[in-house]
C-alpha cells in the first residue's frame, strides 16, 4: 500500500472523529504555540541585549572617577579629584590600547529658529565616534582640528535632529547651544537603546575642548566625566585592565594598599553577563514550553490507545484482506503524525500571532526565525512519532484471528 493511500486513510479516520481529533490536536497546538511564543520572546530579549552591546562598541572599558568600594569623597592628599584629559592621553599611549575617548556631559537647551529642545550635550574627541563605532548618516563628524581649536561645531543624534529640524537637512545649519552658535557638521546614524535603556539618539556631540571652555565650565580645568577605552583585541582585555589600573594609580600617586579613586569597568565582561542571562532566560522559557508539548504528546498516545482498542475489529479485517504489520503500523503512526503536523502548523500560526500580540501589547522585541519554527515543527513531529509508536505497535502486533473475533 503506498504512502499516499495510507495518508488518505489516516485523514479519513481522523475526520470520522472530528471532536476527538480536534481536542487531541488542541494539546499539540497549545504546546507548539507555547514553544514558538516563548522562544520568540527569549530570542527577542537576546536580540535586544545583543543590539545594545553592539551599539556600545567592542572591547570597551569605561573608566569612571571615584571608587565604588568606598565613599566617592574619600581623598588622600596629593591625589586628583577626578580623571583628567592627561589621564586619558596617558592611557591612550599604552600598547594594548587602540583608542581612548574622554567624555564630559551636561544638559543644555538647544535652539534652531523657533524650535527648542533640551538634551544631553556630550563633549568628546573625534576618537569617540571610532570607539563607539558610530558613523554619520549625513555630513561628517568634527575633526581633530576642530577639537584642538575648540571650534563651535556640533554633531546631532537622530532624535535631536528630528526635534530641531523636522524634515529639514541640518548639515551646515547653525543652532544655538546655551545661546552660543554652533555649526552642524553632520547627523549620526540611529543607534537605539543602550544597555541601561537610554535613547542614545537623543543627544548632541561637541568637541571636548569647546565644552570645557565654553559650555560647561569647570572648577578644575582639564577634568573629564569619564572615559571610554578601547582595547586592541578581545585577548588583551584582561592585561589591559591591570595596566590601566597600574598607570592611573601611578599618575594619581596612590600609595600601596589604598583604594583607587577611579573604577575600571570591563564592558565586555558586563556584556557577557547580560548575554548569558538572556540566554538562560531563553532556555528556561523554551524548557517550560516544552513541558506543554510533552503533555500534548501524552494526550495523543492516550487517544491513539483508545482508538486502537476501538478499532480492533477493523484491524482484524484489514489483516484478513492482506494488510501486513508494517501497513497497520504505518496507518496508526501516520494518524498520530497527521494530528501532530496539523496541530504543529496551527500551533506555529498561533505562536506567531501570539508573539505579534505580545510585541504590540507589551512593546517587547520578539524575534521569529525560520529555524525556530522548524525546531517547533520538528519537535511536534518527534513527539508524534514517539508517542504514536507504542499504540501503532500495539495495533500491528494484534493476532488476526483474535482481532477479527473482537466485539
Amino acid at each position, binding site marked *: *500500500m*503506498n504512502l*499516499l*493511500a495510507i495518508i*488518505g486513510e489516516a485523514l*479519513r479516520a481522523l475526520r*470520522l472523529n472530528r471532536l476527538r481529533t480536534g481536542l487531541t490536536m488542541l494539546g499539540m497546538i497549545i504546546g507548539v504555540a507555547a514553544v514558538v511564543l516563548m522562544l520568540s520572546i527569549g530570542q527577542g530579549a537576546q536580540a535586544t541585549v545583543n543590539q545594545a552591546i553592539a551599539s556600545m562598541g567592542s572591547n570597551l572599558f569605561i573608566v569612571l572617577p571615584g571608587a565604588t568600594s568606598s565613599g566617592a569623597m574619600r581623598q588622600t592628599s596629593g591625589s586628583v579629584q577626578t580623571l583628567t584629559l592627561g589621564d586619558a592621553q596617558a592611557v591612550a599611549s599604552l600598547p594594548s590600547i587602540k583608542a581612548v575617548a574622554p567624555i564630559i556631559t551636561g544638559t543644555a537647551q538647544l535652539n534652531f529658529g523657533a524650535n527648542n529642545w533640551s538634551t544631553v550635550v556630550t563633549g568628546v574627541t573625534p576618537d569617540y565616534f571610532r570607539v563607539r563605532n558610530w558613523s554619520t548618516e549625513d555630513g561628517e563628524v568634527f575633526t581633530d582640528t576642530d577639537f584642538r581649536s575648540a571650534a563651535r561645531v556640533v554633531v546631532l543624534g537622530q532624535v535631536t535632529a528630528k526635534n530641531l529640524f523636522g524634515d529639514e537637512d541640518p548639515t551646515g545649519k547653525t543652532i544655538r547651544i546655551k545661546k552660543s552658535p554652533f555649526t552642524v557638521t553632520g547627523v549620526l546614524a540611529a543607534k537605539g537603546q543602550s544597555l541601561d535603556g537610554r535613547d542614545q539618539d537623543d543627544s548632541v556631540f561637541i568637541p571636548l575642548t569647546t565644552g570645557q571652555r565654553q559650555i560647561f565650565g569647570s572648577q578644575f580645568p582639564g577634568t573629564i566625566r569619564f572615559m571610554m577605552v578601547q582595547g586592541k583585541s578581545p585577548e588583551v582585555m584582561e592585561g589591559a585592565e591591570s595596566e590601566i589600573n597600574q598607570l592611573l594609580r601611578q599618575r594619581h600617586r596612590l600609595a600601596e594598599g589604598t583604594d583607587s579613586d577611579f573604577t575600571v569597568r570591563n564592558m565586555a565582561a558586563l556584556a557577557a553577563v547580560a548575554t548569558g542571562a538572556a540566554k538562560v532566560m531563553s532556555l528556561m522559557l523554551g524548557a517550560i514550553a516544552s513541558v506543554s508539548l510533552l503533555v500534548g504528546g501524552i494526550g495523543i498516545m492516550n487517544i491513539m490507545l483508545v482508538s486502537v482498542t476501538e478499532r480492533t*475489529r*477493523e484491524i482484524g*479485517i*484489514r*489483516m*484478513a*484482506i*492482506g*494488510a*501486513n*504489520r*508494517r*501497513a497497520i503500523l504505518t496507518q496508526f503512526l501516520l494518524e498520530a503524525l497527521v494530528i501532530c503536523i496539523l496541530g504543529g502548523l496551527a500551533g506555529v500560526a498561533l505562536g506567531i500571532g501570539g508573539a505579534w500580540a505580545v510585541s504590540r501589547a507589551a512593546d517587547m522585541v520578539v524575534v521569529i526565525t525560520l529555524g525556530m519554527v522548524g525546531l517547533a515543527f520538528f519537535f511536534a513531529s518527534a513527539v508524534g512519532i514517539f508517542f504514536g509508536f507504542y499504540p501503532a505497535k500495539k495495533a500491528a502486533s494484534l*493476532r*488476526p*484471528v483474535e482481532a*477479527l473475533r473482537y466485539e
Partner: protein
Amino acid sequence: MTSVQPDPSAEPLIRVDRLCKIYSLESGVNGTVNSQVLYDVNLNINRGEFVAIMGHSGSGKSTLMNLLGCLDTPSSGHYWLAGRDVASLSEDELASVRNHNLGFVFQGFNLLKRMTALDNVATPLLYAGVSRAESRQRAQELLQQTGLGKFSEYQPNQLSGGQQQRVAISRALVNNPQLILADEPTGNLDTQTSGEIMGVFERLNREKGITIVLVTHEDDIAAYASRLVRLKDGRVIHDSKVGP
C-alpha cells in the same frame, strides 16, 4: 542429479496433514488449561472443488477455517497451500498469502465501516501495491458484475444484508484468488437472499473455477457444494462427494 519437481497441477490446492490445534487457557486455580480443538485432521482439497464443511458448534470447523485462511497457526501438523508449507512462512508472507491467494467471506460481512462499497472492494488491491486509480477501477468493474454498480458510493450501513455480502464477495474476488473461504456466509441472511448469494458462489466455482470452502450448519446451503466434510469434536467423521 536432477531433483524431481512436483507437478503443481497434480498437487492439491490444500493439503492438511495431521493438523492439531490446542488452545492454552490461563486459569487462576489450575495454572494453564489446555483445550484441544482439532485432532489430527487430514484433508486434501483440489483446485476447482466446492467443499462444504459442516458440524455443530464446538466441532472445530471455525478453527479449521482460521487455519486454512492463514489467520491462525496450528499447534502441530502441516498445511500446504498451493504447495507451500504455511508453517514456514513469516507473518508478512502470511499477510501476502491472504492478500493474493485467498478471499474471505464472513457471516457478519466484516466490511470496513464508514467507507464506501467501492473503497471496501479496492482496499485489498491497495495493500497489494496497486495504484489507487487502478484499484478503484477494478473494484468498480467487480461491483458492476455483482449488480451493485450504482451502489458503489454507498456505505455498508446504507446497504441491505444481501448487498453487503455481495460487496464482501467482490472484495474477496478483487485480487483474483485461487481460493475463497466462506464462514457461514448466509448466516445473517433470509432464505431468498441466501439462495442468491449461494448462486453467486456456485457460478464463481463453475464458471471461473475458483475453489470454494464453505462452513455452514444448514443442510440446504451445504447442498450447493459438490463435496461434504463433517467435523465432530475436532475430527473429520465424514467426507464424501455429493450433489449433481
